[in-house]
């Protein structure tokens, strides 16, 4: 370690050690469970990562003085990594407290410090243990037109006709990203392939320090307000889905316990995110090959990475959500209940008529297809079977069918692809008195008390509220209605809907299936087919998404 550290723009080396008593380090380790801690420790001791995670070992076997010194040590250092591996494997088999492992790591085997690489591994382990611990925003990488103006005065424009698919090469990307980061900020980067999803995760650990040596990581206890404080470290994840021109950026998180700086941290983290959003496209661009890119927000923010991969990933499901999912491969896979559905619509060499309801596009979609006449027949058969049944049962069945038509194979509770929050602003003009409200059944949660003027409105809300008596807690609407003097001819109330729940669209689907929301009149954005979580509705559609295919 050099005595003098010089501020540079280099990144923090992975082998840099952090004092294990450092609050950031203890927090990263402390939030892991016992089993995760053990598996992380074993990963450290793996041959691949051992060079960056050297444990504290006994120096030399024949050095007796050393041995004597450490006889009273509570955690006697092991002789070799292999021995230590055995110790942790034994601990894995045994029961015990988490504290025991934590102490062993921080005071025993890695008392001389945990490398940044180790901390990154521990942090990633936490991410795998708690997949919803980060909030991700999806961005689309868009190609830019080559600047026509040699001075670069005019703002670059998105090239709508480009056929270039942005490519991503991790190490090149990192090198150029590093050049974009300011020199008074030091960062440590770790790449990791996600264990279950087709993603490449980049963890950026940012320290506000101009030094890239130990000095940057020391916690200066004497001067708590110093800027070169490890306390002010932040972690950002960037996820690159395989074979998809999108990327997901997580909300920056501070790794410290201190809440003193929380007042300014939100603004800080926002600016950090902006810095990244600006820096990433530059890092992806290759000006020499005349390929420039920009990032465009895709209005999708969620904690669920699986949902992001589904909607912005490399598969077919990006622009075919909701009922359109019958056209994707997922439809075939999900139709397991149907004995011939698995291969349906796959090959034109299969001459067997799509006979069952799930095999051909349901209800609405199949209306005009060549093979669509099957619906009529099916309906006829169903009618015969149902003839003796009661009306309610028929309604339930119909609701299920409608839900199937509107949601396809998506939005099933338990598919692990749920978004937890959807914000929608309805900008439609208020319908005429006695007319149909555009948003149809989704206003059941409207707080009647806040509704002001408009007599026709009130009665409708009351009716809706009555209908919503059996509302589920998962589907909690927060309707804020402020009266704005809209455009001269039409009154446009400000209606903002927020859906909360573990799986918002599955919740809506359940409501449709239960007959609480009228599935046939429900607007399309309630099915989640647009693939956005933030949107403004105009004319009953999410604005700017006349065709979300583009």
């Amino acid at each position, binding site marked *: 370690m050099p005595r003098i550290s010089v501020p540079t723009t280099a990144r923090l080396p992975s082998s840099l050690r952090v004092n294990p008593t450092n609050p950031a380090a203890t927090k990263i380790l402390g939030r892991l469970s016992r089993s995760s801690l053990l598996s992380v420790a074993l990963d450290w001791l793996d041959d691949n990562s051992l060079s960056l995670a050297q444990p504290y070992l006994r120096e030399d076997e024949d050095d007796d003085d050393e041995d004597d010194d450490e006889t009273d040590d509570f955690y006697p250092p092991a002789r070799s990594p292999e021995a230590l591996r055995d110790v942790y494997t034994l601990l894995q088999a045994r029961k015990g407290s988490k504290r025991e492992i934590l102490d062993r790591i921080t005071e025993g085997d890695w008392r001389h410090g945990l490398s940044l690489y180790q901390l990154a591994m521990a942090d990633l382990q936490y991410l795998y243990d708690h997949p919803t611990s980060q909030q991700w925003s999806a961005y689309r990488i868009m190609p830019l037109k080559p600047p026509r103006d040699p001075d670069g005065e005019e703002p670059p424009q998105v*090239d709508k006709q480009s056929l270039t698919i942005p490519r*991503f090469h991790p190490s090149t990307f990192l090198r150029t990203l590093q050049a974009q980061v300011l020199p008074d900020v030091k960062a440590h980067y770790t790449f990791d392939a996600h264990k279950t999803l087709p993603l490449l995760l980049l963890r950026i650990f940012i320290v506000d320090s101009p030094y890239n040596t130990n000095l940057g990581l020391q916690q200066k206890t004497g001067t708590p307000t110093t800027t070169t404080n490890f306390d002010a470290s932040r972690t950002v994840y960037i996820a690159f889905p395989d074979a998809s021109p999108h990327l997901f950026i997580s909300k920056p998180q501070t790794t410290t316990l201190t809440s003193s700086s929380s007042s300014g941290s939100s603004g800080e983290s926002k600016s950090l995110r902006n810095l990244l959003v600006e820096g990433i496209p530059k890092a992806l661009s290759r000006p020499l090959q005349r390929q420039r890119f920009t990032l465009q927000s895709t209005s999708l923010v969620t904690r669920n990475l699986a949902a992001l991969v589904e909607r912005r990933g490399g598969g077919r499901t990006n622009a075919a959500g909701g009922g359109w999912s019958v*056209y994707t491969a997922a439809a075939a896979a999900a139709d397991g209940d149907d004995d011939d559905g698995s291969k349906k619509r796959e090959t034109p060499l299969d001459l067997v008529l799509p006979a069952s309801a799930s095999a051909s596009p349901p209800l609405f979609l199949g*209306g005009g297809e060549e093979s669509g006449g099957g619906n009529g027949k099916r309906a006829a058969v169903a009618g015969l079977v149902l003839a003796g049944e009661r009306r309610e049962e028929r309604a339930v069945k119909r609701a299920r069918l409608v839900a199937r038509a509107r949601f396809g194979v998506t939005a099933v509770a338990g598919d692990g692809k749920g978004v937890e929050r959807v914000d929608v602003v309805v900008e439609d003009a208020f319908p005429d008195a006695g007319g149909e409200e555009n948003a149809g059944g989704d206003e059941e949660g409207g707080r009647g008390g806040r509704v002001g003027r408009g007599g026709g409105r009130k009665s409708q809300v009351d009716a809706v509220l009555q209908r919503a008596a059996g509302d589920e807690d998962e589907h909690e609407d927060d309707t804020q209605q402020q009266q704005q003097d809209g455009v001269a001819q039409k009154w446009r109330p400000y209606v903002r809907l927020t859906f909360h729940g573990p799986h918002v669209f599955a919740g809506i689907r359940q409501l449709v299936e239960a007959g609480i929301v009228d599935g046939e009149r429900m*607007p399309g954005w309630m099915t989640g087919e647009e693939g956005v979580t933030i949107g403004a509705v105009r004319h009953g559609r999410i604005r700017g998404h006349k065709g979300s295919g583009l």
Partner: protein
Amino acid sequence: MASDLDDEIDDLQAKIASLKKQLRIQTSTLITAPSTRQLFTEAADQPTTTLTLPRKDNTTTTTTTTDAATLNPKLRAQSALQQAHNQQSLYRACATLTTFRARDPDPHAVDGGAILGLRVEVISRARFLRPYYVLLNRPYPGGGGGGGGGGGSRLLRVHRHTLPPCIPLAGLAGRYLPAPPAKKPAGRGGDGDGGVGRQDLARFARALRREVVRYHHRLGVVADLRKAAGMGRERDEEGEEEQLNRLVDIAPADAEAKHLSIEWADGRTGRLVMGDDGEIVKLVVLGENGRDREAGRDLLGGAVRVEEVVKRMAALT
């Protein structure tokens, strides 16, 4: 005991499923058989009841009635359906680019929810893959560029699609299905392109299919390369270790499968860039001491196309 019973039930269920499947296949075969169709046409001429018996055996209709009057039209409808399906399948198999109409279930959908579907068949390794779909609608109000006949403009726009993101659908749509110019066409004088403003669905579909097929061919050639290099095969003889010149991995390195990353057993890595149609654009091999041009020449052997490399490698091994 219970598990035995469960097993038995599972067995029976599986049997039922397979029998049902058989029944469906037989139905579709019988109903399209020339002799059956001949019977239909005869029945149309003179509606007799003698034809009900054989038909009843062959159909899957769940109705229990033996009344010929109810059975006949149903069967006829089934036959018509089957024929339509056969014709559709024939078109799909031969034309590989077919259209269909569908309806948008969204009550607020533009243009009354009318959707034009484009179905792109993909054949890879002698097999039809699941087709790709592009669903188009007509969201633009009337009066826009291309001769608005009825209420709205006839110009199309991509509404939904199931194409993977490595197909530059947005770019293709921007070229062949441009949106009508905004209110002031004078404002966009900068575009020197002649074809701007005219939509050409046929060219769009052709270009799209071309991209899709290219992509699948590239994927196929990667698989061929892997096979030719003996990857994925179980290596039983461990004595091969000294053969450091062996390739251990070939994998597509980007979304479009145009870049291939190649790994050798001795740690050398390479990057092969191929063009749209599989021509080799560049190959770089990095060894321990920088670029290893010899290995690159070794691998290519003067090949210009990736397929030639496959042939070469297959011949060597």
